[in-house]
């Protein structure tokens, strides 16, 4: 984990130096503005979002006992997309603490979608994770359909929304950092406190119950915390795939399944991965910026297959 932290710091410093505008010490006013107002919040935001996605991945993989669970299984990203779409299309001139309507409405949409999925999934005493997964699929499809419908009637705005949905940090400013920081801090602390219970849950719901865990209550808490994490992440950066699913797996390969180490290490790994991805996205075709979400999926897909091959060989 020390390695990860160091790696993160190094990557951050490197990322700060990358970009179309050359930074030379001593900094002139333009360079300082670029560094402090554009690059630093962007680097910080990328790390925060990466960490949030990775931790959510860990939480969901533990909750659903399914290694394929990613942060968006409960419909959060489609809710955010719908919120963002409504904000952009209605030309709402909402300004709260430096934030435009889009991230605010995206956050609201994300929370709404997850609350809906959670409410649907709560049947009887135990909030059956399987039911929630299915509800997530249904709600995702429904919200996506609504979004597509809206865009169909306002096709001139389509490019803007689709670009946002692909995920990116071009709009990252201090306002966004300030908006999600409190949510992320609280959620990270909560997540870390779930570590032992998540370990127990890996043995099965019945066994966890026999060892003294109030399973239904705990599942509710995890869904709540994870939803905050994802909603915060998606509202400022669109839907960035793969980090949330792959980072926990990578970390698990080295550290093992114990959540007491898995959660903080995944946060660091996710932050590092997304930072690297974002730095690549904005420098590879400089000065044009690629959407980060596209990059993570492009690299993430084949990389994940490689991981699979490697771990299968290790098992034999």
């Amino acid at each position, binding site marked *: 984990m020390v390695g990860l932290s160091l790696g993160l710091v190094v990557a951050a410093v490197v990322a700060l130096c990358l970009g179309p505008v050359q930074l030379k010490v001593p900094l002139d006013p333009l360079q300082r503005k670029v560094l402090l107002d554009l690059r630093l919040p962007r680097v910080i935001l990328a790390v925060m979002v990466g960490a949030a996605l990775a931790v959510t991945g860990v939480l969901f993989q533990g909750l659903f006992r399914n290694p394929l669970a990613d942060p968006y299984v409960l419909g959060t990203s489609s809710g955010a997309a719908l919120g963002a779409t409504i904000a952009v299309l209605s030309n709402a001139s909402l300004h709260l603490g430096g934030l435009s309507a889009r991230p605010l409405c995206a956050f609201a949409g994300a929370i709404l979608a997850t609350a809906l999925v959670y409410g649907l999934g709560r049947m009887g005493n135990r909030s059956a994770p399987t039911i929630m997964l299915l509800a997530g699929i249904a709600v995702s499809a429904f919200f996506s359909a609504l979004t597509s419908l809206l865009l169909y009637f306002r096709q001139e705005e389509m490019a803007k929304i689709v670009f946002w949905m692909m995920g990116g940090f071009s709009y990252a400013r201090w306002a966004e950092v300030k908006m999600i920081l409190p949510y992320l801090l609280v959620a990270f602390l909560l997540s870390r406190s779930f570590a032992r219970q998540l370990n127990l849950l890996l043995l099965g719901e019945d066994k966890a*119950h026999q060892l003294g865990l109030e399973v239904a209550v705990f599942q509710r808490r995890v869904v709540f915390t994870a939803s905050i994490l994802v909603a915060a992440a998606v509202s400022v950066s669109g839907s960035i795939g793969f980090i949330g699913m792959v980072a926990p797996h990578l970390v698990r390969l080295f550290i*093992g399944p114990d959540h007491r180490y898995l959660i903080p290490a995944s946060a660091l790994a996710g932050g590092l991965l997304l930072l690297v991805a974002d730095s690549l996205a904005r420098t590879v075709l400089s000065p044009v910026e690629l959407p980060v979400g596209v990059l993570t999926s492009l690299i993430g897909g084949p990389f994940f297959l490689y991981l699979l091959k490697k771990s299968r060989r290790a098992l034999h």
Partner: protein
Amino acid sequence: MLVPSIPILSVERLSFCYGEQPILADLNFQVPTGSFTGIIGPNGSGKTTLLKCLNKTLTPTDGRVVFCDQDLRGIRVKTLARMMGVVPQQWAADFAFTVREVVMMGRFPYLHALSGEQAADWEIGRRAMEMTKTWELADRPITQLSGGERQRVLIAQALAQTPRLLLLDEPTSHLDVSQTLEICALMAELIRKQGLTIIAVFHDLNLAGRYCDNLLLLKAGRIYAQGSPEKVLTVENVEAVFGVKAVVRDEPNTGKPHIFFFMKNRLKSKTAF
């Protein structure tokens, strides 16, 4: 302190239905403190369901369970985990925890939120592993263990909860002959030396007859007979409940009743059994 004459568990009019389907109907029995109680019966008679009702995994549709003088419904899950350990029949070991980590999870109901395991907890875990002969496996990942080894790890985990009552669902199903005898001897020793009470579901009637001092014979969700092995394991009971022909002889060495089974509609030929 537990007074030995008061039953540790008392079940009154217990019933359970899966929706419309009745599984258990009107069960009434008591488990004496310090006893080794065996639950026996054919497949589908409700043995596992009964165990689940006893550890609050399932909520009975009628009746009540009184454990250590309290209604089970009023006992919080974490408190219950300190008093009752459960060893299930099967267990999917998908994640590569070490044996030590799995056994130490048994201390969860005792851990405070902020502090971790204390020296006393590690000591309890170690003793639980030594008793089940899993201490040698402590650092092995559970995914690499055989079925029998995993079974013993689960028993160790339940013992780490330092319970007063241990519930086991067919604890010897994955064990070979010598391991079976070892585990049964271990259970007898736990009762003698640690004052534990044990309730175990048994597939093997003769094993139950040899080690248990109290038996519950279930048939189709009801108690057909209960009491000592001599009283329950009779030819009439076995034939009525299991639908086979039975012959009972005394075991050599132990003198306990041993049942031999034969098919009901025997062919005239001597080679048929």
